[in-house]
Each structure stands twice: as structure tokens, then as C-alpha cells.
């Protein structure tokens, strides 16, 4: 067990037999631990499996390491949150989890060593099917009607009612984890910013945190606050866009069109920090690349306040319209039990009543932030996911404004970027947990003997949450899909890597 900010020596972790690892992990999950990452890597003595578990109440992490078997008894039947991790492990490393209820590829990618000869075409696999005279199947994608990423959806329907939805992704697979290991060091940060383009700040914060924890460098408070401003601005932009999209799919067009514009205002505030609306080129290991002086901070506070007024006004007219509320309430419900069992994260989990938020559970710095509160409505329907967003808009705007004001007052007090050592210490493991706007972003970095990467694992919140969307559709109608989809708004590329 180790504190989440600490690093551990990777080789000192005992190499367990796989049976012992699975029994221990399942036992921990029963006692309230969460599976944050479970993946394979090429260790010194051969292929290994590593599982990272977290226990938010006492901010402790646990890492279990085992040598990779050819087959093992699947954990999924007794610990459903392992289901996609086990599929991923099977696809990339050829390890068979015996007894896995739905074993098929996740991304249709070549194995990690690139040795697999025949590779199935994307989404070419068996799908869950319900047989019956009046049961029919609806297939959608990969290329969708709107300007969105590709993915394949299969609905099993009885009339208009959806009995089951299977979501098959993988079309966006760019081999990110392999690229992180093989690319020149200066390219790694831009790759992190492109893992999920709408979460550039979230993923770059996670990467920088891993590197800083390994190097033992603690960024200055000013850098931490600037990162926090950027992270909350990213949340504001995306929540505003999604609230508008929910309005659009409900047929409430005023909010839909206003929010489209206000989203741009939030993104433009981010671009005042770093020149890029999408938060590229702001963070770097050691801190941030750009500072704000008192004049800019003052101007940005005003813009945050005015954009917040616009967002609030636009969202409020939607949430005061009875026909909108009637459409949102009770649609696409995910129970608290299902959310906890499947290991959903972030605002989707909070909407279902699971009180998890990395900003409180695993804070990145010790600087208090009174503006933020954990928002946990609990009903688990589209309405709850709308409310989480709406409430977090209040919190994030207040937090960003307060932080910017503080930065303006203390302008020039300390550097925003500290020098980093040329090499990271060898053979260490560090974990970063960041609350991106969708939820928990988990990065695990392990260094090799030369201080390069032995392994780097990225777990985007969408990896956990796509199953939540599939659950939300059960018993609903196909026409509810767009609305449910927008209420989650998950990343395809974050899942596919």
C-alpha cells in the first residue's frame, strides 16, 4: 500500500502467481477498492501483469504484480468492473480469461508485440443477439450523420423498445500507448494532448503529474493554480456544449444555439492562456509554459463572469421549461448499484449517486478551493446528468474566477515553471489521477533502468463509461439514444487510444 502521491520501486513489488493476484484483487474490490488500471507489460523477467487499485477514503493505492500466464480464471463474474480490462489484456497479450462472460476484442488492434499475423477487420466479430420472430437488429455507424467520431452501435429491439445495446469501438485506435514508448521524448507531451482532444488539459495534467512525481519535483503553487484554472475552463466549455446539445436533442433550440456560441467563449478564454482554444501548449512537466500578469488576469476574470452569466441564463430558461424536464426525467436511468459495479467514473457516476471526484479524493495540490463541491444528484437519469453539469458550471466558474483573481494579485511572485532533471529515476512507478471533465483520468508510468519508459498506461474515463451508456439504453427506445448519448458525451478516441 502506498500514498497516491508517492512513487514505489517497481522491482520491489512481489511477483505473484496470477491466481493469487486475481483472488486478492477481487477481495479488495469487495471491500470497496476500485480497479483503476489493469494491464500487461514487458518486464525484465518476461511479460507481467500489473493491477492498480485505489481506496479513496484513505487516499491509498495498491499495486499487484504477477507474471503473465497463458490462461487464468476471469475476475469479471465476481468483479464486473474488470470486464473491459480483461478483454483489453486478452486482445493485446493473448491472455485468456477463462469464464469471461463476453470475451471479444476491444479495439481490433494488433497485439502489443505486433506479432499477430491475421488481424480482424474493425468491428468484425459476433454481436450479442436476441432471437425471436419480432425482434430486430439496428446497426449504426461507424461513420455517423453528425460531425462526430466513428463507432459502431448494435441495438436489439422489440418494436421500438431496446432490449440491449452493444457498443463496438476501436475505429479510432492510433496506438497511443505504443507511441508513448517509441516516440522521441519531445513528442510525448503533444501526443498526450491529442489522446482525447477535448480533454487536452486533463491528459496533459495527468502526464505532467506522473513525470513530476517520479522526478520528485513539486510545481509552484502558482503553476498548480494556473493548471486548475485551465482544467475548470475545460470543464466549463464541455459542460456548456453538452447542455446545449441536450437542449438540441430535446427540441429546445434557444439553449442549443446560445450554448454553441458560449462554448466558444469559454474556449477563447483558454486560448488567452496559451494561444490554443483546446488547451494545447499550456502545460509542461515542471509547471506551465505561460504565466498571466495582473492585467490579463483582471480581463479574464471579467470574461469568466460574463460568460458565466450567459451560460446560466441560457441553461436556466431550458431547465425552467416543463416540456424539457418531462423529456429528461426518468430517461436513460443507470442505477447506483450498476454504476458502482461497472466502475463508472466522473460525472456519470456522480449522477447515479456514486460520490467520487478526483478533485476531492485525490487532490493534485494542497491549495484549498472553497468554490468546489461534490455534486451527487443520484437519480441516474438524463436529468441527473444534466443537473451535475449545470451545478458544476456554477462551481467551476466561481473557482476559475477566484483563482484568476488570486493570480492577478500575486503576479510575479514565483516562477510558473521549474527546471526538470534530464533523466527520471530508474525503475520507479507513479500514478496520477486527475478529474477531467468526463471523470477520472488515470495514468501509470513505470521507468526502465535508463529512466525511459518501461511502460505507460492511459485509462481515459470513457473506457469505464461506455458500458454505462449501454446500460442506460436498456428498456428505452431507439429515439432516446441521441439524448442519452449526449448526456454522457463520451470520447471514442479516449477509449480507443
Amino acid at each position, binding site marked *: 500500500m502506498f500514498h497516491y502521491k508517492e512513487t514505489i520501486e517497481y522491482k520491489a513489488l512481489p511477483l505473484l502467481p496470477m491466481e493469487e493476484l486475481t483472488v486478492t484483487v477481487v477481495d479488495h474490490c469487495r471491500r470497496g477498492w476500485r480497479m483503476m488500471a489493469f494491464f500487461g507489460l514487458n518486464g525484465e523477467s518476461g511479460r507481467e501483469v500489473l493491477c492498480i487499485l485505489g481506496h479513496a477514503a484513505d487516499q491509498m493505492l495498491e499495486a499487484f504484480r504477477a507474471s503473465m500466464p497463458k490462461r487464468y480464471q476471469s475476475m469479471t463474474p465476481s468483479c464486473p468492473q474488470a470486464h473491459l480490462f480483461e478483454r483489453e489484456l486478452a486482445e493485446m497479450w493473448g491472455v485468456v480469461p477463462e469464464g469471461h462472460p463476453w470475451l471479444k476484442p476491444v479495439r481490433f*488492434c494488433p497485439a502489443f508485440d505486433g506479432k499477430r499475423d491475421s488481424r480482424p477487420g474493425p468491428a468484425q466479430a459476433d454481436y450479442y443477439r436476441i432471437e425471436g420472430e419480432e425482434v430486430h437488429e439496428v446497426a449504426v455507424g461507424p461513420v455517423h450523420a453528425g460531425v462526430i467520431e466513428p463507432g459502431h452501435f448494435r441495438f436489439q429491439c422489440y418494436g421500438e423498445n431496446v432490449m440491449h445495446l452493444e457498443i463496438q469501438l476501436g475505429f479510432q*485506435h492510433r496506438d497511443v500507448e505504443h507511441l508513448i514508448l517509441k516516440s522521441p521524448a519531445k513528442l510525448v507531451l503533444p501526443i498526450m494532448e491529442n489522446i482525447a482532444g477535448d480533454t487536452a488539459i486533463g491528459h496533459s495534467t495527468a502526464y505532467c503529474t506522473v513525470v513530476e512525481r517520479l522526478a520528485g519535483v513539486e510545481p509552484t503553487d502558482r503553476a498548480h493554480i494556473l493548471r486548475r484554472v485551465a482544467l475548470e475552463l475545460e470543464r466549463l466549455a464541455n459542460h456548456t456544449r453538452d447542455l446545449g446539445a441536450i437542449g438540441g436533442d430535446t427540441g429546445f433550440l434557444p439553449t442549443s444555439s446560445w450554448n454553441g456560441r458560449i462554448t466558444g467563449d469559454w474556449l477563447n478564454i483558454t486560448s488567452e492562456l496559451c494561444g490554443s482554444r483546446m488547451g494545447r501548449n499550456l502545460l509542461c512537466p515542471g509547471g506551465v509554459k505561460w504565466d498571466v500578469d495582473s492585467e490579463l488576469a483582471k480581463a479574464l476574470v471579467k470574461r469568466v463572469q460574463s460568460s458565466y452569466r450567459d451560460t446560466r*441564463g441560457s441553461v436556466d430558461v431550458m431547465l425552467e421549461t416543463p416540456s424539457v424536464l418531462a423529456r429528461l426525467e426518468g430517461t436513460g436511468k443507470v442505477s447506483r448499484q450498476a454504476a458502482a459495479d461497472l466502475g463508472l467514473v466522473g460525472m456519470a457516476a456522480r449522477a447515479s449517486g456514486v460520490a467520487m471526484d478526483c478533485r476531492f479524493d485525490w487532490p493534485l495540490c494542497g491549495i484549498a478551493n472553497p468554490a468546489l463541491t461534490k455534486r451527487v444528484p443520484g437519480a441516474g437519469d438524463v436529468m441527473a446528468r444534466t443537473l451535475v453539469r449545470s451545478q458544476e458550471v456554477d462551481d467551476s466558474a466561481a473557482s476559475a474566477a477566484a483563482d484568476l483573481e488570486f493570480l492577478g494579485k500575486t503576479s510575479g511572485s514565483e516562477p510558473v515553471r521549474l527546471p526538470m532533471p534530464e533523466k527520471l529515476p530508474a525503475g520507479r512507478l507513479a500514478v496520477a489521477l486527475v478529474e477531467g471533465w468526463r471523470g477520472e483520468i488515470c495514468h501509470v508510468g513505470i521507468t526502465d533502468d535508463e529512466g525511459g519508459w518501461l511502460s505507460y498506461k492511459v485509462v481515459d474515463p470513457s473506457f469505464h463509461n461506455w458500458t454505462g451508456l449501454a446500460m442506460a439504453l436498456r428498456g428505452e427506445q431507439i429515439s432516446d439514444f441521441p439524448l442519452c448519448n449526449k448526456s454522457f458525451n463520451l470520447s471514442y478516441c479516449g477509449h480507443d487510444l
Partner: protein
Amino acid sequence: MFDIIKERIHQGYRTLDYPFKMPVITPRFAGLPSVTPTSCAGCESKACLKACPMGALNIAETGPELDMGRCLFCRACENACPEKKIAFTHEHRIAAYSREALIVRGPAPADICQPGVRPALGQQKRDLSLFARSLKLREVSAGGCMGCEADVNVLGTLIYDLGRFGIEYASSPRHADGILVTGPVDENMRKALLDTWEATPEPKIVIAVGVCAISGGTFSCGRENCLGVEDVLPKGSVDVYVPGCPPNPWSILDGILSAAWKKKRMK
């Protein structure tokens, strides 16, 4: 109802009369690069080459050459060059008609950042005037990270109001005059992109938005064949390139207007 009208009045009129009025873009924005064309033979450090994460720079006999088709506009070279030979201007109109025209070898023109119609860089591969009245585009995200997609999508909002130019995103390639591709075109999207392109009736145009679609961007050194649109579609099929990671929406709007050769009508 009264509240909606009240809020409508508060939200106001926001559409910009582009391109006759210039958008206000942050001072930290990096636009069209400007290069001083003098020999770098005396420079021993070659700090720009070391700093560039993308290999977008080349030191030729005449000085540095910057390939916008690989550039992330991160300013690493600008900060590194001891002689300050590379600078990024504020000009957002950086679309080009040819891959070659994306390579910057000289200083930026003196008349940049002025309102009005500005032609895209380089020469058109073919006459695009057919698309000048109405243009329907099918957007294909082929491994795109949602950065470019978000900035393509935003053109439909009030500020940009793409519809007023007669341009719309079509839901099917059969209804489209061309495709707009984002993303590096990973292996799993290769066939879907080809199918979409083939399903689009002739004559059709292709717009590549973002450094990924142009050259594979940050994903070009992997195993998933992410080398951009021209690695998959027939050579010469891309009509307009819009560089950036991701490009600013105004740059994308400018690129789409160039593709439709609408600028000619505006004059």
C-alpha cells in the same frame, strides 16, 4: 415564454461579418509563420531542429524552411532560434491549395491581418467554381481526437454561421459535394474513409483539416499507418489543406471558403 424572449434579447446578435471584419483572436495565437531567408551555415547549435517535436523544420541553403503540414504551431522553434529567424504572425488564414505551398521559406507578406478576401496559398489543382453557390460537405473523422472535429462543428454556431455562405454538413456522402477529413486516418478507419469517398458523387472535393489529416501529425511514427488523407485516397485528390493542431475555427472557415472558391464571388 417571456423569460425566453428576455434571455434572447440579452444574448444579442453575435454573427461576425466575416471576412470583411476580422475576428479578435488572442495575442498568444500562433498564425502564419514568417521566416528570414538567410543562410544558417554559421549557426552551430541548430537549436530549432532540436526543439521541434515534429521534424517540421529543414535547414536549406537559403535558411530555415517550415512545413506547416507537420507544424503544431507550438512556437518551440521561435523560442529556440538564437537569431530569431522564425516568427509566428497573427494571420489566421493559412489554408493552401497544394501540399508544397504549406512549406514556408520566406517572410510573411506585409499586408497580412487586413480584413477582406485573401486567397489561399499556392495554386488550385483544378477549377472549383462549380461549388461556389452551394456546398454540402460530409465530415469524416478518421482517428481524429475531437479537437479538429469540435472546431469544425463550431462553424455551425451563431458566431460563424456557416449556413449563410451556402455551406452545410451533409448527413450522407450521397448528398455531399465533397468530404472534409479530420484525423490521421488510422488503419481501422481506412476502409470507412475510402467507402465514404467513393460514395460521394463526382465531381467532388476533399478538404484535409488539421496536421493529422495532412501528414499524420503526432501519430505518424506508429504502427497504425497514420499518415494522413493522401496516404489513403488517390494522389492529388485533396483540394484544400488547413494546417494547425487543431486549426483555429476561423482558419477552417477560411479554408472551406477557399475550397468552394466562394471568395471569388465575394469580390
